């Protein structure tokens, strides 16, 4: 039996974990819950590794489990596809997922038992959904996972459900995701309407990616744009990004797993998966690139002025996701996926590090009340620093390679993309080190009590940090650019079969010459270093404690986008709902219905007055109506 047939085991383990933890959460002790929770993900990871090794040898497979929906000509099986792209994502999800599970076991230890169980049950469910999303062999299965991760994100953001603000954030996340989902759904319908299938690719050439030539230009543009709408929702791009910063309401490991490493990259996965379609639609690609770049810059500006440690990281995530979309937009699919991977490492690391800090500070998240933590939390400090360097794009840390690949592709597409992108990279370096400096350098600004209790986190938390730090450092070497060492870009070769059709469509790609490429690298690294130095210089000694003013305030208040949405969308919607409910429904429609009743009543009251009780009147009315009927018969009908 082919190992690939075992692919169902990958999502199966977390599902078991979900069920066991969910149903028995009151009975099981915390330790067992965490062992089950993490163990199941570990099992998945092991299977994933097995699968990966199989895929590495060039074997791919589509595994049909059962018929899901099968009506008429439309047949949608419940099928998993295991190929280079999905196996790579499997590793990221289960690997990082496992680390975060382990981390969570320590981080969430203060929770009551049933809530602890609930937490792990959600987390397992999330891993399950994410695996479905990645493994699905057709858009519908992907959509199932897509909504599933949305649900888990909702549940986990609102994990502390007593707090209304948190549940509001959860709601917001779910609803914004739903908006994107609608786009995704319509895209699926569009595909079905045109091609009659949603399966990616089949052996007999009847999949979407086999039949793409049947699509007209409008179709392709429409479908890809709608898919992209879905991606903007899930991957927090303009205009649907505002939920992600709010999503930081959830427990920090959740932020690390869902809102940094995995779920938010679903959009990138989807577009990478649909690369054929996108390559066919350069118009959409431009849109994707533009939106990605805009998001990257926009979020970066906001991140500069944030004071909540998790908010900074959240905006940074948004910004990095923007980069990935930029990569997708300029056709650097590999680069985007590469960045997904490295980003998963270092952003998970950063979040977990932040979690460690928060843990140590007793749930204090404001960096203005931190400072000087480097000595107290050495491991956290070190790993966090590694993460910062990685995200800032300093070679040879992983972030450098992936980001550089995207920027290089952007340069070859259009110079302006590159320049803007590099500006964003500069800002990234700046705000990350602002964060680092404010948190870990300088003197401690928290309360005495916090100071008293400051301590390094337990091993369950630091070990994942260390592992992730190692990955952040080394992760980049699977994608060393050709220019440095020819043939070293292992990832590109690995993923080539997936992107092969789009490469075929694109035809010969113009490669940058080596000098230019070195120059670009040098420029970006140089600017990043400058930004880092400025940030360190500025914030390590005297962090900004006062409220920002002027333009800084605009940034700190996130460009007032939330307020704008509130004013432009939420308020009118509420107002409309209110109007419909209180006026249109009650007064108009119901009033109309009741009005008929009232009319009958009223006319009854009037008509009965005819019955005056006077014989004379009766006879008169009779005679008059006789007269009328005579007239009708004799003089009108003729």
């Amino acid at each position, binding site marked *: 039996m082919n190992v690939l047939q075992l692919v169902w085991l990958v999502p199966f383990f977390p599902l078991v974990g979900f069920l066991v933890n969910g149903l028995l959460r009151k009975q099981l002790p915390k330790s067992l819950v965490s062992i089950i929770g993490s163990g199941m993900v570990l099992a998945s990871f092991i299977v994933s590794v097995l699968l990966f090794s199989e895929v590495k040898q060039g074997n791919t497979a589509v595994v049909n489990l059962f018929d899901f929906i099968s009506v008429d000509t439309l047949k949608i099986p419940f099928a998993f596809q295991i190929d280079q792209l999905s196996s790579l994502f499997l590793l990221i999800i289960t690997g990082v997922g496992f680390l975060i599970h382990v981390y969570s076991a320590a981080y969430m230890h203060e929770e009551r038992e049933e809530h602890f169980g609930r937490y792990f049950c959600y987390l397992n469910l999330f891993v399950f959904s994410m695996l479905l999303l990645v493994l699905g062999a057709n858009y519908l299965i992907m959509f199932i996972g897509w909504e599933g991760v949305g649900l888990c994100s909702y549940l986990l953001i609102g994990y502390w459900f007593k707090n209304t603000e948190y549940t509001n954030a959860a709601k917001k996340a779910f609803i914004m995701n739903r908006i994107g989902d609608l786009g995704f759904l319509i895209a699926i319908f569009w595909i079905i309407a045109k091609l009659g299938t949603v399966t990616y690719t089949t052996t007999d050439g009847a999949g979407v990616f086999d039949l793409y030539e049947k699509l007209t230009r409008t179709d392709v543009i429409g479908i890809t744009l709608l898919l992209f709408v879905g991606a903007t929702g899930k991957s927090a791009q303009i205009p649907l990004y505002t939920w992600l910063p709010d999503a930081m309401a959830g427990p920090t490991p959740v932020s690390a797993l869902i809102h940094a490493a995995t779920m938010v990259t679903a959009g990138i996965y989807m577009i990478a998966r649909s690369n054929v379609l996108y390559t066919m639609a350069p118009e959409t690609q431009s849109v994707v690139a533009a939106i990605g770049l805009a998001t990257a810059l926009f979020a970066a500006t906001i991140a500069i002025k944030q004071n909540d440690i998790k908010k900074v990281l959240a905006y940074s995530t948004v910004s990095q996701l923007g980069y990935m979309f930029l990569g997708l937009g300029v056709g650097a699919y590999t680069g985007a996926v590469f960045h997904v991977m490295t980003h998963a490492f270092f952003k998970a690391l950063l979040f977990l590090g932040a979690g460690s800090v928060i843990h140590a500070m007793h749930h204090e998240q404001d960096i203005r009340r931190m400072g000087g933590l480097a000595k107290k939390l050495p491991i956290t400090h070190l790993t966090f620093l590694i993460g910062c360097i990685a995200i800032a794009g300093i070679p040879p840390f992983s972030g450098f390679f992936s980001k550089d690949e995207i920027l290089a592709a952007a340069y070859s597409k259009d110079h302006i993309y590159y320049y803007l992108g590099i500006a964003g990279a500069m800002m990234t370096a700046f705000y990350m080190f602002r964060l680092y400096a404010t948190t870990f350098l300088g003197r401690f600004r928290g309360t005495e009590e916090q100071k008293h209790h400051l301590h390094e986190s337990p091993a369950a938390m630091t070990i994942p940090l260390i592992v992730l730090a190692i990955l952040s450092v080394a992760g980049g070497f699977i994608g060393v650019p050709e220019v440095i060492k020819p043939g070293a870009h292992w990832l590109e070769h690995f993923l080539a079969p997936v992107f092969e059709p789009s490469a075929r469509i694109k035809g010969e790609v113009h490669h940058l010459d080596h000098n230019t490429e070195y120059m670009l690298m040098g420029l970006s690294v140089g600017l990043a270093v400058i930004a880092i130095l400025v940030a360190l210089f500025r914030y390590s000694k005297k962090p900004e404690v006062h409220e920002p003013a002027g333009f800084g305030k605009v940034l700190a208040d996130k460009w007032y986008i939330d307020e704008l949405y509130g004013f432009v969308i939420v308020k009118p919607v509420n107002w409309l709902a209110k109007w419909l409910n209180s006026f249109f429904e009650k007064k108009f429609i119901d009033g109309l219905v009741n009005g008929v009743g009232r009319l009958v009543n009223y006319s009854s009251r009037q008509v*009965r*007055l005819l*019955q*005056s*009780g*006077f*014989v*004379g009147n009766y*006879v*008169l009315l009779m*005679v008059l109506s006789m007269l009328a009927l005579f007239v009708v018969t004799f003089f009108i009908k003729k």
Partner: protein
Amino acid sequence: MLIERYIYLAIALFCIGIVGVLARRNAIIIFMCIELMLNAVNLLLVAFSKMHHAAAVAKGSTAGIEGQLFVFFIMVVAAAEVSVGLAIIVMMYRNTHSVDVNFLNRLKH
């Protein structure tokens, strides 16, 4: 004499009866007006009867005789109605000392 004359005459009488019913409030007079209507009908019936008879007289038939017999029956019925009607009016008068049809006006709407 042409039949139209009788038609007009009878209708005129009939309508006078109706006007009487409409215009008066005395129950007895209203009742009398109704009798007037019946008489108008009778007159017309006899006229028609003669008309039909005239049309068929050559054959020596008794055509038209039903008309006159109908008149007879109308008179019979009228007599019966009068007895009942006057009884009702007297009954009312006994209870209310009025023959005004509008006097009793408890049943309405």
